[in-house]
């Protein structure tokens, strides 16, 4: 019989190794899934993980996409990781992302067609505030009424999805769009556009913000009292209370930061890569960011790497759709599998596996 023995503290070696192991296991299981769909598994894996970066014809187009797709994932996941560490479960980042985009885009479009240099900073602030406010709903309900923040934040995603549809059809609809749904395209509004900063790199303001967020989170967690409180609360809520942590304040802080970062991600996306508010504006970054946060071990640098990896699966998935006819949903299932395997192999970092004679329990 195999027996699990709890380690006094998580193994450092396995903590670093398990994400790699999980990715390898997912590749094997994903290959089997692709084989079941009648595709060559080796070719599929190569197209997803290798070709976007190194293929002769597709590479030059795909490489810049890596940063474009990774930026919102990293930005959102950094915020989520703070909460997840403290046991505050904001899983409605998708909704905060949408609301950030609506608020930011709305603030910019209100001044169309001004060319003031203050417009874009104003939109950034509006986007962050929008996401922050949307995240404050579950946070305040939790601190005031003890309402479960998991359910409220998630249910608000559906509300936000309806709201973005209504905006695309009503309030923010392009007045010159001949009645088609969708807002003005920010490409035609230079003062509010989020351009590629360095040609052919995919670098835009969202990527800059994501890097800043990584550094900010790293400093917060390793050098700041608040970061220490977040870590203690996650490991032992009781000890944290005795050491003077105010749990309600921590909930508001974690939810607020993750909401504001998700709102920023939405703002940078709508003014740049997406270009406009449309009915199906959100593509699930808020949910995939949950996988990114766990795959990155809730550590800022890990999240940076994990964000790049999952961005790669998005791009590789599109490429596999093009070259193999692999359905888009296959990638979604693949990403879900990754989280499963990660959680499964995590047992290695928290427990020792021992061979034991079976004994009467």
């Amino acid at each position: 019989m195999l027996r699990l023995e709890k380690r006094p503290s998580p193994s450092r070696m396995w903590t670093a190794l398990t994400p790699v192991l999980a990715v390898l296991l997912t590749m094997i299981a994903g290959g089997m899934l692709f084989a079941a769909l009648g595709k060559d598994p080796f070719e599929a894996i190569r197209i997803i993980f290798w070709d976007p970066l190194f293929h002769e014809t597709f590479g030059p187009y795909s490489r810049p996409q890596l940063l474009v797709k990774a930026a919102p994932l990293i930005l959102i996941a950094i915020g989520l990781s703070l909460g997840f560490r403290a046991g505050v479960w904001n899983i409605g980042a998708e909704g905060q992302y949408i609301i950030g985009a609506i608020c930011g885009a709305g603030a910019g479009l209100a001044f169309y067609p001004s060319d003031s240099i203050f417009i874009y900073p104003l939109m950034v602030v509006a986007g962050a505030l929008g996401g922050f406010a949307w995240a404050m709903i579950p946070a305040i309900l939790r601190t005031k009424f003890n309402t479960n923040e998991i359910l409220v934040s998630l249910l608000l995603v559906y509300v936000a999805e309806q709201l973005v549809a209504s905006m695309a059809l009503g309030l923010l609809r392009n007045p010159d769009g001949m009645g088609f749904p969708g807002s003005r395209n920010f490409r035609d509004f230079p003062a509010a556009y989020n351009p590629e900063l360095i040609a052919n790199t995919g670098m835009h303001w969202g990527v800059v913000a994501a890097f800043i967020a990584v550094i900010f989170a790293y400093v917060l967690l390793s050098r700041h009292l608040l970061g220490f409180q977040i870590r203690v609360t996650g490991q032992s809520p009781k000890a944290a209370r005795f050491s003077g942590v105010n749990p309600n304040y921590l909930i508001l802080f974690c939810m607020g930061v993750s909401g504001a970062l998700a709102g920023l991600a939405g703002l940078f996306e709508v003014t740049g890569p997406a270009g406009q508010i449309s009915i199906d504006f959100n593509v699930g970054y808020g949910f995939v960011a949950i996988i990114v946060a766990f795959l990155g071990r809730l550590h800022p640098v890990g999240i940076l790497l994990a964000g790049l990896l999952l961005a790669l699966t998005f791009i590789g998935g599109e490429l596999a759709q093009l070259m193999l006819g692999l359905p888009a949903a296959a990638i979604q299932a693949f990403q879900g599998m990754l989280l499963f395997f990660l959680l499964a192999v995590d047992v290695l970092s928290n427990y020792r596996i021992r061979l034991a004679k079976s004994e009467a329990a």
Partner: protein
Amino acid sequence: MDLSAIDPLILIASLMVAATPILLAAIGELVVERAGVLNLGVEGMMIIGAICGFAIAVNTGSPFLGFIAAAAGGAALSLIFGVLTQYLLSNQVATGLALTLFGLGLSSLLGQSYVGIKPPATPSLNIPLLSDLPVIGPVFFQHDLMVYVSIGLIAATWAVLKYSRTGLILRAVGENHDAAHALGYKVVRIRMVAIAFGGACAGLGGAYLSLVRVPQWTEGMTAGAGWIALAIVVFASWRPWRVMLGAYLFGGVTILQLNLQAAGAVIPVEYLSMSPYLITILVLVIISRSAQGAPAALGRIFHASH
């Protein structure tokens, strides 16, 4: 707006149909949570049930077999959650989320060739005497079998939890797993059975959506029904009959807003469509102020180390 077009009797009849998927999923989750396990993957298990049930019903022409397959599919998916949380001791919140993400992806993969097909019709029951009653008959006694199965499940769950030894053991495991373990009960095995039961119920609920309520297969068709089922368990303070009350209240809100949409209300469609979610949140807030009755070991990891 023409409010007279809304017939209260038809409203009640369609309310029962609208509530059934959530009722089924919620009663399954109630049993899981009473055993001390928080499975946030209800949405994923529902949508897997929806596509499994739909595919089998279309291929065999039998909705009955479809429901069986849906229960099996939901249970199979829930066992992944079970193995991860019970044997590999993973975090239940994260694993439940993974189940939902994976279920949504897998279901749209499985369902690709089923878009736009009509499933075989699930027949409504014709109960002699009862179905022929004036007014009451058409409202309460001319539904399909699953509506009554869901109510039967509520009654059975209530009776088992309250009066049987099995129910007592299940509750003991959910309240204090260490004590239950010390008494010699197999905590992990009991929880695995509860998780599989929850998965099967969620699968049935999903299939009811794709086979009866909609009836069609579209990607992501559960649209938060699984999360609302989770909210209803909290609303019900973990008691079976209150789950039924919660699900029917929710069904009523859903049907009412759909009727208002059809009647051409002045409120835009999108705002009516978000009302069920907002009302669920509102109800959660009201109930949470005094929420009691959560199983004491809910969401805690059990590891028999001593």
